[in-house]
């Protein structure tokens, strides 16, 4: 049950090779120069990473959620920021495959699967994050078009993406009044805020997305009117498993670097790895990551089979894995002493990158809210 298949091992091997060659050597530089490597993303797309769990008949790779988790963990070992962006892109591609009609699939998915076109997910607004059902961006039907007005906040990939899946209000009925729309870049009335300056995730842009009397054809509505919140949340179930996997990869990389460093660094006349206090920290990092990995794999399997406890397991996986990943990275920084604090060693970047995983795709408080409510109300 916990052994990977030969295919999965081959997939992990390929992704690790790709990431080691094309991502890892540049990760620090991209972070420092705030460079979003769209060319490397297109290479990843050629290998099938743009539509990992998009069905084959829609042009995707048709792989499982567990395959996806393995892929994101490997990518994140090289750079959590790039891995996380690819995870958001895949979430959007899957939403179009799952909830779109044939025409929408044939229009958007070829470009998304090859990653020649990038995708963004636009739910959060300046005034609403955790309480997403209270969003206020408005979409009003006018003939065979919708007219959108409002602002989305913190949108990953904004300004570089070719496709935005936007959640907007079509009725004043709470979460039941939200619809999802496919908005292509270049639409008149669509504009972007300035690049946000952030603690981490610097190799991908985060911007506001602004709609001012933006008209899009009614045919760009994804799913039925009023189904947008459900679509957004279903996308996030997978997003949470994937972001958890990204944290595992970052945490594992930080742990592996720590083991190597403690073997090589001497103090008080002997390699530091001989200090049991430090060895125990390694043991704790490893155990927490492995426990979280087990949880991520289990949630991925639940998602794949659409079991009844999918929502709960995905929330648990996200909570456990993003905490374990961040804690491992932060401990790794301490184990590296002053060198951990220098950019050159790559550890402080992992800490900065993984910190946001505890906040987005539903904050870890919101994960507890979901888990707690299900525990209490069933």
């Amino acid at each position: 049950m916990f052994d990977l298949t030969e295919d999965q091992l081959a997939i992990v091997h390929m992704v690790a090779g790709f990431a080691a060659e094309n991502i890892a050597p540049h990760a620090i530089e991209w972070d420092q120069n705030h460079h979003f490597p769209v060319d490397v993303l297109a290479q990843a797309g050629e290998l099938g990473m743009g539509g990992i769990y998009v069905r084959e008949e829609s042009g995707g790779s048709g792989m499982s959620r567990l395959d996806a988790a393995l892929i994101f963990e490997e990518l994140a070992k090289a750079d959590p920021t790039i891995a996380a962006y690819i995870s958001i892109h895949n979430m959007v591609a899957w939403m179009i495959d799952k909830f779109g009609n044939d025409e929408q699939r044939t229009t958007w998915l070829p470009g998304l699967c090859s990653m020649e076109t990038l995708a963004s997910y636009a739910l959060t607004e300046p005034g609403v994050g955790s309480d997403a059902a209270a969003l206020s961006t408005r979409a009003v039907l006018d003939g065979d078009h919708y007219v959108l007005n409002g602002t989305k906040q913190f949108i990953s990939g904004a300004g570089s993406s070719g496709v935005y899946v936007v959640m907007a209000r079509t009725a004043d009925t709470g979460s039941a009044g939200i619809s999802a729309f496919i908005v292509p870049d270049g639409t008149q009335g669509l504009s972007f805020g300035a690049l946000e300056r952030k603690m981490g995730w610097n190799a991908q842009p985060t911007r506001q997305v602004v709609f001012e009397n933006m008209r899009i054809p009614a045919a760009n509505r994804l799913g039925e009117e009023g189904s947008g919140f459900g679509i957004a949340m279903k996308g996030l179930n997978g997003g949470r498993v994937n972001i958890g996997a990204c944290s595992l990869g970052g945490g594992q990389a930080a742990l592996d670097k720590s083991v190597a460093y403690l073997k090589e660094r001497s103090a008080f006349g002997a390699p530091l790895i001989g200090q049991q206090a430090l060895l125990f920290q390694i043991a704790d990092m490893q155990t927490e990551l492995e426990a979280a990995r087990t949880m991520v794999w289990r949630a991925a399997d639940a998602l794949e089979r659409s079991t009844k406890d999918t929502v709960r397991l995905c929330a648990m996986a996200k909570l456990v894995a993003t905490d374990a990943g961040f804690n491992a990275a932060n401990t790794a920084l301490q184990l590296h002493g002053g060198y951990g604090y220098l950019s050159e060693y790559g550890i402080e970047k992992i800490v900065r990158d993984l910190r946001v995983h505890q906040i987005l795709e539903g904050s870890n408080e919101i994960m507890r809210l979901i888990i707690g409510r299900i525990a209490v109300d069933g």
Partner: protein
Amino acid sequence: MKIVVLIKQVPDTAEERRLDPGTGRVDRQANDPVIDEITERALELALSVKDKDKSTEVAVLAMGPEETSKAIRKALSMGADSGIHILDPALAGADITLTAAALAAALKGAQADLIIAGNESTDGRAGIVPAMVAEHLGLPLLGALASAAIGAGTVSGERLNDAGTQRVSAPLPAMLTVTESFEEARFPNFKGIMGAKRKPVTTLSASGLGIATEPLSTVIDLEQRPPRTAGRKIIDEGDAAAQLVDFLVTQRLI
């Protein structure tokens, strides 16, 4: 066009490799087995022909123990259409003459227009197997090329040597070997990985090929490479350049 690529599974060069003093053979347990990088480049060349002309059929041929099937599977995931695995315990430790005879026998049935191999392997290395295979098959060999142009009826290429660049060409069917100047191999994509196990692999034994299994050569002796000793340090007291030249001359390095 049908292209057969000879691929070899070798111990990973990223780690230290060793010979087994008992058998005189490469210790294949000591390292992860991988496709020899040079034969990956050979495969890349074949696949680049297929990229341009989809009707091109690319087969890979490998001789080796059970685990060689992994190298064949990897080649199939990268885009080769089929595999041939010469698998026979009696061929374990085959020398170059036997290896060449076995490969040639398998190639006789394969009806290739072009056979591509690496110029030499990174493990037990003589660099002669492709030439012997070509000899067995009576095919022209364009060896150790730096570049190649593969046409419908001919193959041509360039070979670099001390004197300059040789331009060589041959009518098909022919055999060529690539050097490190060829493109690095592509990564297999997900579809390739998932589809590899559905592609056909033929397994052939020595008796099936109708070849003998007695090697013609034996390893008489082998020695571990002596551990490296500390180098000589030249301290510059005005005559370092002269000392350096002396050293290089006495070592016949210049």
